């Protein structure tokens, strides 16, 4: 386990030490490869029992969720166990504005969904961010359930029937991209099976994947900009020691609220993408188990490392689909894998570099102290 992440870190290091043009070229190549995944259908990675394009869309969507929740948990240190609530608010805002009570085009629905979730984040955060730690976890847990119960019981929101006919993004049909089929190690082009660029429809998930992946990349960049600024430092200082941060001039409450609202907006954005992809949503899509899964993604990935949580989100979404043939046993294995990770690698797959450095230094000190004790 730890060798995996050391290797990943080493890859990261080597990448960073490359000259700038090479770095750029490699990055473009990697991004291109990720975009083309559903076209290439790489034999070992592709899922045979479910539509690979749909699985990849889920991976990208949950990656977005994980990036948002990572701001709340990883940077600001606020344990949010009701993140599905924001996801649901985003999805239902799109549903209400685009289908149930209006005919707004999707491109207007999405920013509206983000705004509404941001407001809901502020409304939830303003009273609750005054409590800390465990209490906040319980309050947010309640929030997630309240949202779901309100959805089930409100006719205006479609109650348990949910909302259907949610609009798709506007299509611009330019050209078709034929898929690859693999016969062992030999690939051939399947002209009978192509994805129209860019035609959003219920039958083909790949354009939705491309859209979501693009949004993920943009949000990752914004996340980087934010972390490397006064805002990111204030979040981390608050996480480390709230009282000390306050006494060093950080308005901690304001920054916690900002983290909450930013996280909520990103959660709402992913919910909106989910709604438009599914075209149909009902309250059963937003049960509490998803909140737990989201937290698992952040913890497994390594709290505070954006690449780690993206990796974990993709992995935790892809694995159950890949091993669908194991039927129910896969959930048992999934749970066992999570437990093993918690025991052998509590800091997550790819913790922020500083956690790794700190751990190494701690081990060195420990060895030194033991050496003294035995002498």
């Amino acid at each position, binding site marked *: 386990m730890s060798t995996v992440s050391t290797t990943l870190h080493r890859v990261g290091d080597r990448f960073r030490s490359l000259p700038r043009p090479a770095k750029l070229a490699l990055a473009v190549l990697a991004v291109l490869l990720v975009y083309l995944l559903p076209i290439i259908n790489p034999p070992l990675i592709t899922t045979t029992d479910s539509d690979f394009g749909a699985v990849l869309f889920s991976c990208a969507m949950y990656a977005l969720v994980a990036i948002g929740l990572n701001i709340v948990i990883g940077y600001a240190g606020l344990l949010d166990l009701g993140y599905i609530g924001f996801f649901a608010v985003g999805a239902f805002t799109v549903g209400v504005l685009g289908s149930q009570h209006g005919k707004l085009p999707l491109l207007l629905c999405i920013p509206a969904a983000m705004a509404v979730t941001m407001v809901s984040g502020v409304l939830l955060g303003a009273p609750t961010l005054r409590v800390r730690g465990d209490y906040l976890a319980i309050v947010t847990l309640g929030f997630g359930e309240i949202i779901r119960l309100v959805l089930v019981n409100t006719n205006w929101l479609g109650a348990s029937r949910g909302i259907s006919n949610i609009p798709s993004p506007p299509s611009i049909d330019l050209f078709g991209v034929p898929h690859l089929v693999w016969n062992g190690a030999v690939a051939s082009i399947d002209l009978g099976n192509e994805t129209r660029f860019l035609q959003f429809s219920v039958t083909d998930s790949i354009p939705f994947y491309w859209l979501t992946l693009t949004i993920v990349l943009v949000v990752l960049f914004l996340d980087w900009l934010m*972390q490397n600024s006064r805002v*990111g*430092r204030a979040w981390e200082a608050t996480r480390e020691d709230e009282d000390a941060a306050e006494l060093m001039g950080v308005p901690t409450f304001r920054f916690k609220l900002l983290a909450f609202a930013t996280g909520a907006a990103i959660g709402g954005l992913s919910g909106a993408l989910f709604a438009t992809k599914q075209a149909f949503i009902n309250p059963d899509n937003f049960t509490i188990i998803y909140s737990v899964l989201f937290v698992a993604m952040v913890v497994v990935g390594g709290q505070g490392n954006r690449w780690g949580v993206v990796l974990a989100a993709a992995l935790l979404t892809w694995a159950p689909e890949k091993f669908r043939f194991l039927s129910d046993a896969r959930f048992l294995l999934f749970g066992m894998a999570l437990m093993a990770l918690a025991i052998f690698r509590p800091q997550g797959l790819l913790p922020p570099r500083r956690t790794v450095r700190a751990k190494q230094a701690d081990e060195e000190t420990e060895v030194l102290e033991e050496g003294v004790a035995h002498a």
Partner: protein
Amino acid sequence: MPESTSTGGATGAQVVAPEPTESVPDTSVDITVEELVDLPRGKMLEVDDVTLRFGGVKALDGVSFHINTGEILGLIGPNGAGKTTCFNVMTGVYQPTSGAVRFMGDPLGKRQKFQITKLGIARTFQNIRLFHNMTALENVLVGADAHHSTGMVSALLRLPKHRAEESEGLDRAFELLKFMGLDRRANELARNLPYGDQRRLEIARALATNPKLLCLDEPAAGFNPAEKVRLMELIQTIRDQGYTVLLIEHDMKLVMGVTDRIVVLEFGKKIAEGLPSEIQDNPAVIAAYLGVDEDAS
């Protein structure tokens, strides 16, 4: 600017610092803040008849004293006398039950902690409270951010304000790290620094907020005598750069040597105030503090 600095975590580029050797403060660095040079003489901070009750316990009982601009005031007293509580009232951690604290003539009132820091009071902690999983440089940057106003929007758009504040903060932070002898350890995590460096980093972080009044809560705790002497010299240098210093310290000999005036607390009450030489001979102080336990340090 952001490309070349270690303000970030996993992906932030790191400043390559040379191998750490022994930390030697470079006190020739000028860390003065411009506005400090012409501070009006007189009372910088007044503690006026402050009482603080926790239920039935009077932690502070009608305490009054003041700090003059540009002096080093020692606050001493036996354990549990209320010294740190006094700090907490002055920095907004506790609201006094009665009485008031005035900073440059202006009552602190119900100001929040971070607002008081912005006014110009900074402190360190008796038990070190650094941001342990951030680097030394980032710790100081957080302090420097106290007077910055970059928000989400200017950070995301990398507006000129963000750039200006970021480079100003970095300059200030490196200056202070150098002054404290920590510049070689800028990129180390605070938790991995040796104990003495952690104490000095706390002072650097507090200075980064551009305070007019620097409150040090037992900065030399756990130091050996030689280190204590060096720290006291450092504190005097800080004062000479224009800062006013309030110092809680247990070691009587040091307090006598470095402070201009001394206030003595016992059981939440002020029992003496005066020049070090006066305090030394004050019978009440000797009874309360020195006489009872010679080794109170």
